[in-house]
């Protein structure tokens, strides 16, 4: 009996591995933007080098970005973002590692509402979050778009009192990733 289980197990593992390899979609040029809007000041930044990878057979999704790749129109702000707020030397990346909640038929073109649940790490603090957005499947590519908020206090990002009114307590994040089949 145990031999049968082992064989079955082995087969399952093997197939899932084979599947996993065939079903990887990824990008190294995803777009992550955030904005902080207060009556006094609007701050925007954009990261065009976000990495994302999706395993369509398991629904696993991972996203990773370097904080120093966020570009601000104002370079002094960029320096302060890295040096004072997000502490890029100590916490160089923001990541998400999770799973698409509902199975999606990736073989059919179309647009779907989707959400993913997993570990969301910014500034070295990990939160379990469900982030919803849209997935679009078109000519062999998968687009993932989402809008969500990140509360500074959730990730222990300190804002000194004198600039308190200039930085929103909740930062709006917009993401747009277009994933293509990963070539081995």
């Amino acid at each position, binding site marked *: 009996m145990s031999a049968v289980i082992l064989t079955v197990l082995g087969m399952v593992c093997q197939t899932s591995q084979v599947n996993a390899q065939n079903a990887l979609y990824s990008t190294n040029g995803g777009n992550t933007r955030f904005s902080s809007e207060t009556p006094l000041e609007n701050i925007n930044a954009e990261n065009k080098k976000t990495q994302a*990878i999706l395993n369509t057979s398991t629904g696993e999704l991972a996203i*990773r970005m370097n904080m120093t790749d966020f570009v601000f129109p104002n370079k002094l702000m960029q320096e302060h973002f890295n040096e004072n707020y997000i502490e890029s030397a100590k916490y160089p990346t923001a990541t998400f590692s999770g799973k698409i909640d509902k199975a999606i038929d990736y073989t059919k073109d179309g647009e779907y509402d989707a959400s993913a649940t997993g570990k969301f790490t910014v500034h070295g603090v990990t939160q379990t979050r469900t982030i919803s957005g849209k997935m679009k499947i078109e000519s062999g590519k998968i687009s993932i778009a989402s809008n969500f908020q990140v509360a500074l206090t959730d990730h222990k990002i300190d804002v000194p009192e004198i600039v308190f009114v200039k930085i929103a307590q909740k930062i709006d994040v917009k993401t747009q990733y277009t994933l293509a089949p990963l070539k081995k």
Partner: protein
Amino acid sequence: MNRAMNSARILLFVLLPMFAFAQDDLLNQLQKEDSARTIPVTATFKSTRVVNGHSVETMKKNHMDFRISHRFGAVNSGAYQFFGLDQATMRLGFEYGLTDKFMVGVGRSTSQKVYDFFGKYKLIEQSTGARNIPISVTLFGGTGIATVNKELEFQDKIYYTAQVLIARKFGEKFSLQLSPTWLFRNHPEVTGDEKLLLAVGIGGRYKLSKRVSLNAEYFYTAREKNTITAPYHDSMSFGVDIETGGHVFQLHFTNSLGMIEKQFIGETTGTWGKGDIHYGFNLSRTFSFDKKSKRVPN
């Protein structure tokens, strides 16, 4: 039935960690792909000056730095001069980044009525990762016209400065800079003084907190100190940088009165030992003229 349940359980038990691992595997895969990048080391100093001397930092493209610098009289000038605060010399400067690596600046000092002009180019940027460069190197070239003495020929009012600024950020907190300096005066202030002066500066900063750093700077001049033809000493300064949004305040004590290389490297008359110390500050305000930024920071 029971057996089937059991095997299903075992299956689940065996597979679960696999799924859990797989997610992190994806993340690890991203990290592996990303390992070939070069990460530039930024913010070696908070400002384009260590104290008096230039740091390796340049203004970024389309950003203007408006600088107001003051040096007061000597602290040892007594209560009558309110310990130096009654007298002040100042320099106004407009400094601008033409590219992310090249900046230009103009300034006007009240002392000797000098107009100064300079360009500064970031030649090598310290970086880690795929391309590991241990130091930053910035070239500085400047000239100035001291217009105080109207009798002098135009060319005699002119001086030139060239510096190779070499710095390393050793960690988040500590940065060190060496500044070999070449200073040429067409007409030295004291007759008999050499036209050419070679010097080397050493400067550093230590971050006390995210927004406050301690700075120090010393310029060694290759000449005999305090002679009749060159009654000068080496410049030594200590300061604190305080950063608030778009401003950097640099408060310091220095034995130099001037704020341009000709004056603080070449013509420092005070000594720390006798208390010829000047209190001073640089106020730096950055404006972004990047079209994408709707508002300037504060």
